[in-house]
């Protein structure tokens, strides 16, 4: 693994490049698109394991931190869906330069999948498709989840009085320790995954089963999203953002295996 900064020097992004350790496999390159905030911390090890397994299978892999997250430049308030999409496109080009790959697949988890779907609207050269791993389908519903998690966290950590002082009608400005900009809130209020029309080559859903709200029901993906759409069967439902296990890891190894197999057989 090689760690480095890339992108515009005034807007540096932190990246990790995993060179393929198996030659001749003719695998597509893979950009891993992290989720947001605490979910990125929770999935850190999952992405590390996924990157190592893909590189062992022969795929060049890029992991990176969005601007305003991780070791990349910028304050957390700089992060938005639009900036995530821009950063995914930047990582895509960086990986193409480094690996000379002709086809690049994006694997996006949670809000990372949503950002990737938005980035795909730009139809970047060489994009072979998207594996959307438990994508955020409705931004409005995600905001509700974030708000309830935030209140529950305050209650859990600091008690009833602190949670009662939290104004549930005020705009959400932070979520489990990470700032949320007004811009991101505005974007999420209107974001719907199934209304995007990138018309990419292939989309693979890797769904979770625990969604209960109507807004999060698995959508029927219309033909305007991708030429080919299929699904990785559900394996487990990791808790990516529960408030009572912060700063821990989740590694759903069966799903990681499925994603590696999907990339290995990508057509």
């Amino acid at each position, binding site marked *: 693994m090689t760690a480095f900064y890339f992108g515009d020097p005034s807007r540096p992004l932190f990246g*990790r490049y995993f060179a393929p350790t198996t030659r001749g496999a003719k695998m597509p390159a893979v950009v891993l698109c992290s989720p947001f905030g*605490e979910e990125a911390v929770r999935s850190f090890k999952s992405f*590390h394991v996924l990157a190592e397994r893909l590189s062992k299978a022969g795929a060049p892999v890029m992991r990176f931190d969005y601007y305003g997250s991780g070791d990349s430049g910028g304050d957390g308030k700089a992060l938005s869906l639009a900036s995530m999409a821009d950063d995914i496109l930047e990582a895509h080009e960086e990986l193409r330069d480094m690996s000379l790959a002709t086809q690049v697949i994006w694997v996006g988890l949670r809000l990372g999948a949503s950002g990737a779907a938005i980035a795909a609207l730009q139809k970047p050269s060489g994009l072979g498709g998207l594996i959307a791993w438990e994508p955020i389908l409705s931004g409005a519903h995600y905001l509700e989840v974030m708000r309830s998690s935030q209140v*529950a966290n305050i209650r*859990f*950590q600091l*008690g009833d009085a602190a949670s009662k002082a939290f104004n549930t009608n005020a705009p959400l400005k932070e979520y489990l*320790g990470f700032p949320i900009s007004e811009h991101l809130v505005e974007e999420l209020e209107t974001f719907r995954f199934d209304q995007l029309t990138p018309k990419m080559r292939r989309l693979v859903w890797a769904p979770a089963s625990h969604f209960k709200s109507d807004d999060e029901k698995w959508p029927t993906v219309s033909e305007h999203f991708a030429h080919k759409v299929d699904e990785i069967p559900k394996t487990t439902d990791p808790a990516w953002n529960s408030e*009572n296990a912060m700063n821990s890891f989740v590694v759903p190894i069966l799903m990681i295996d499925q994603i590696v197999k999907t990339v290995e057989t990508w057509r």
Partner: protein
Amino acid sequence: MKERVVSFGQDERLVGILKSGKGRVGHLFLNAGIVHRIGPHRLNVTLARAFDAPSFRFDLSGLGDSRPASATASNEDSIVNDISDAIDILFSTGCESVVAFGLCSGADDIYHAALNDNRITGLILMDPYAYTSTRARLERTIEKAADPSRWARAISRLTSKEAERENDKSDSLDLSNMPEPADPQTIDRVFPPRQEFGENLSRLTATGRDILILYTKYVEELLTKPEQFHDTFRDFDFHDRLTVMVNPDVDHTYTLLACQQELVETIRQWLDDRRDRSL
């Protein structure tokens, strides 16, 4: 931004981010638990960028982006070696001393490293080892008895069967049955004996090291006031170099942004005071 990636240590297996800055006192940031070098809620990045000082945040062997140490080294030795190698990086940029920041396990690691490395002249220990006393236990019992929310939760638990039935009907979170925050003495963290901790803090301060201890709600079952700490360690001389603060309104990892900001300002004040004292 003046940050760059540094691979270092044996076989360059360790990864860190070096930030350039002003002055000869470098800031060193340790992992907290298993979270990689950015820290819980990116706290290490926030703190590193809040101050002009050069800084280095890195992953210990086997954590984050760093590869594991050889199987022959004990975990304790590996941590001390990693920290020493990280200090070498700061010194290679012109630093002449280091203030080390650590939360929870990171605080434990700094404490042990400083006992063996006099280049660490300042220690900022967030929720390090904590010890109770008879006075602290008594005061805590009184605090609990006077806390109406505890009575409310007790009543809530008594009616939990009805709460469970209600929760089955909706997607709402069950707030009434949330567990208490972890008791630091019941988790997998080996505390040295009180006497040993006191002696070592005294030894560190006697050799010119300044120490800031910041306790949070995390240790509320052990102590809730700085006076209780000083009462517990009244037999030891800390040479006016140990500052203890307890903030029961802050959680273990400073989750609320306001708490993070308050932490930055508290440390800024301590660093300023320390610099003024040395002039």
